[in-house]
């Protein structure tokens, strides 16, 4: 409580110092500051506190780091961690590759270009849970459209969501289908903004289509790549809704990711433990994305 009482004083001090340099009166900052403090700062501090307690929503017993110890002992956690990484890398990798290829295709002179652009983008607009439920039906091992189509040409399809070997990857593929439209749009914007002069110069030098793509489009679309990688990596690391609506982490625990492990702890009423899990997830995402973003952006400046 003491830290909470002290913080407004520090805040006020900072505001006063900055006031010298701005044209706005101090109270202009107040509404935003209050909203920020109430909705973001306070919950962050509170969650750090509750992650150190055994919490029943009405009372909290301080138990030190026991929640973190318990969370890391969670037998499914290691698998959840590995799955989260696989999921994030697979989805973000595929979104980069497919998004770039689609971006190149949809900026070239093809017929019905605008129509195709919107078709690629449509899945982004659909609700994730709706997509999950639809694909669950399509991927049913015996009655689903996918395996029935495969059966028609004589192939026995696997249990996409029920075979522990495929469940996570199946969900990742659906995630890519749904999210690639956004990556494509970012790439289209990136590619369109490349000045035509470079392509003309490359043409005069006698570069082929592949060379132009490799030496002009790819390096000059790097800002788009950075954006797509970071957005889809963060999205992949904290992904939950699609996995929950398609497999609920199953069969068993085989497609559990950190977010679904945390949700299950919350559902079971282990509020302190699930809060500790969220703190772990926050640290993990920060640990991965901050250095990645720094490295990618530094290269961009170096260029």
């Amino acid at each position, binding site marked *: 409580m003491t830290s909470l009482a002290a913080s407004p004083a520090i805040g006020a001090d900072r505001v006063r110092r900055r006031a010298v340099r701005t044209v706005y009166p101090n109270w202009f900052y107040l509404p935003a500051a209050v909203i920020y403090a109430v909705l973001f700062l306070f919950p962050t501090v509170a969650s750090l506190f509750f992650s150190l307690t*055994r919490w*029943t*929503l*009405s009372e909290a017993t301080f138990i030190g780091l026991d929640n973190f110890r*318990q969370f890391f*002992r969670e*037998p*499914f956690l290691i698998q959840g961690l590995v799955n989260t990484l696989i999921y994030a890398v697979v989805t973000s990798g595929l979104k980069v590759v497919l998004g770039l290829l689609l971006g190149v295709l949809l900026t070239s002179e093809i017929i019905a270009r605008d129509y195709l652009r919107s078709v690629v983008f449509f899945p982004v607009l659909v609700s994730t849970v709706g997509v999950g439920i639809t694909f669950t039906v399509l991927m*049913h*091992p*015996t*009655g689903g459209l996918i395996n029935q189509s495969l059966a028609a040409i004589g192939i026995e399809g696997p*249990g996409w*969501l*029920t*075979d*522990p070997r495929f469940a996570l990857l199946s969900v990742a593929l659906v995630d890519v289908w749904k999210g690639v439209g956004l990556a494509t749009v970012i790439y289209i914007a990136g590619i369109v903004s490349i000045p035509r002069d470079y392509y003309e110069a490359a043409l005069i030098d006698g570069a082929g289509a592949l060379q132009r793509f490799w030496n002009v489009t790819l390096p000059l679309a790097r800002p788009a790549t950075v954006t797509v990688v970071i957005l889809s990596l963060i999205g992949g690391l904290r992904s939950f809704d699609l996995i929950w609506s398609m497999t*609920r*982490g*199953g*069969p*068993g*625990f*085989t497609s559990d990711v950190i977010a679904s492990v945390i949700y*299950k*702890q*919350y*559902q*079971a*009423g*282990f509020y302190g*433990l699930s809060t500790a899990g969220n703190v772990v997830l926050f640290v993990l995402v920060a640990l991965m994305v901050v250095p990645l973003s720094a490295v990618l952006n530094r290269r961009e400046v170096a260029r």
Partner: protein
Amino acid sequence: MTAHRMRLAALSAGAGLALAAMVSGPALAEEVTLSLLIDNGPQTVAAAEKVVEAFMAANPDIKVDIETRPGGGDGDNIVKTRLSTGEIGDVFLYNSGSLFQQINPQKYMVDLTAEPWQADIQPSFQNVVTAGGKVYGAPFQTAMGGGVLYNKKLYADLGLQVPKTWAEFMANNEKIKAAGKVPVIQTFKDTWTSQLFVLGDFFNVQAAVPTFAEDYTANKAKFATTPAALKGFEHQADVFKAGYLNKDFGAATFDDGLRMLASGEGAHYPMLTFALGAIQTANPDAVKDIGFFALPGDDAAKNGLTAWMPPGIYISNESEHVDAAKKLVAFIASKEACDLQTAAVGATGPYLVKSCALPADVPPMVSDLQAYFDKQGGAAPALEFVSPVKGPSLEQITVEVGSGIRSPAEGAALYDEDVKKQAQQLGLPGW
């Protein structure tokens, strides 16, 4: 000034009115509105609507608003959150047994120990809604059994007998498979349906190790190290290894399972008997073909039923109309309410109100179930009613064991680890 004075005048006039109302209270009894929170299972809703309708007809000054919530884990979330934020409403329905213990009854519920209708309630139910020596609930709906639903027609066609031991059960399965039918239906898309081999085996566990529940609560006995308790996990793995499951077991749902059983596509479906309601809705013609037997163990002489208690009706201590709420609960605990429920959803099992009786003509599943209750020592409550310790991940673990992803011994050990958190959260001694 004038505005201020006018407001004051209005206030005092209002107070006067209120006083007048208070004085003439009984004569001009104002209508009280109670909220009743129940789960959204079609059976629960149908039964509750019928009972509430009759209650409101008998008590015109009390209006009851039924509100529904999802069942399962999402329902647990809602109840726990609404209790702690004081938004649970007046009267609510929730599980008895270990889940009841987890929502802190002493803090949130009205003590119903001294209500006159308690004399008419079976002690076996009172035990599972008691915390700290006080009774907090009344039973709603009927007791259930956990065991195997089977297709009687298929049994008759193949000349099979109801198995009393696990070996007989597996021998039956072999014959069913040879006849080209699915011996054991499993539906892991609805993960909760996977737990019956373990949870429904508890009669056999307590028959072999009578002190298991007590030792388990005190952190002295474990599933992994008690051979009798490990059996449930092993049985689940056995039926998978023998190839007795339906092909789409990983993606099938509870409804799929009942459809397969009703159509005779599959012979056995390990399930709770409350499934009768869903069969009645979806396949009313099949009800006469479905029977029930308890999960068989090693010893035919010691075979018996693992029983589930119905959920309880509780009153929130934040309610502003406790007297009206008590009237509603008393009505729900009466014979009249049992008969109304039977009229609404049919007879699904024995009621926990002593004066209630089932009609003479009940479906075979219910008479099979009743036979276990009628036999002395033929039924014992499931583990979750004799111990507050129940891990949240059992359904995922049994899915893994039942799909061959994890061995039974590892599954049991993992479950022992899982319950530890629950015991610690409840602050039980010895954990």
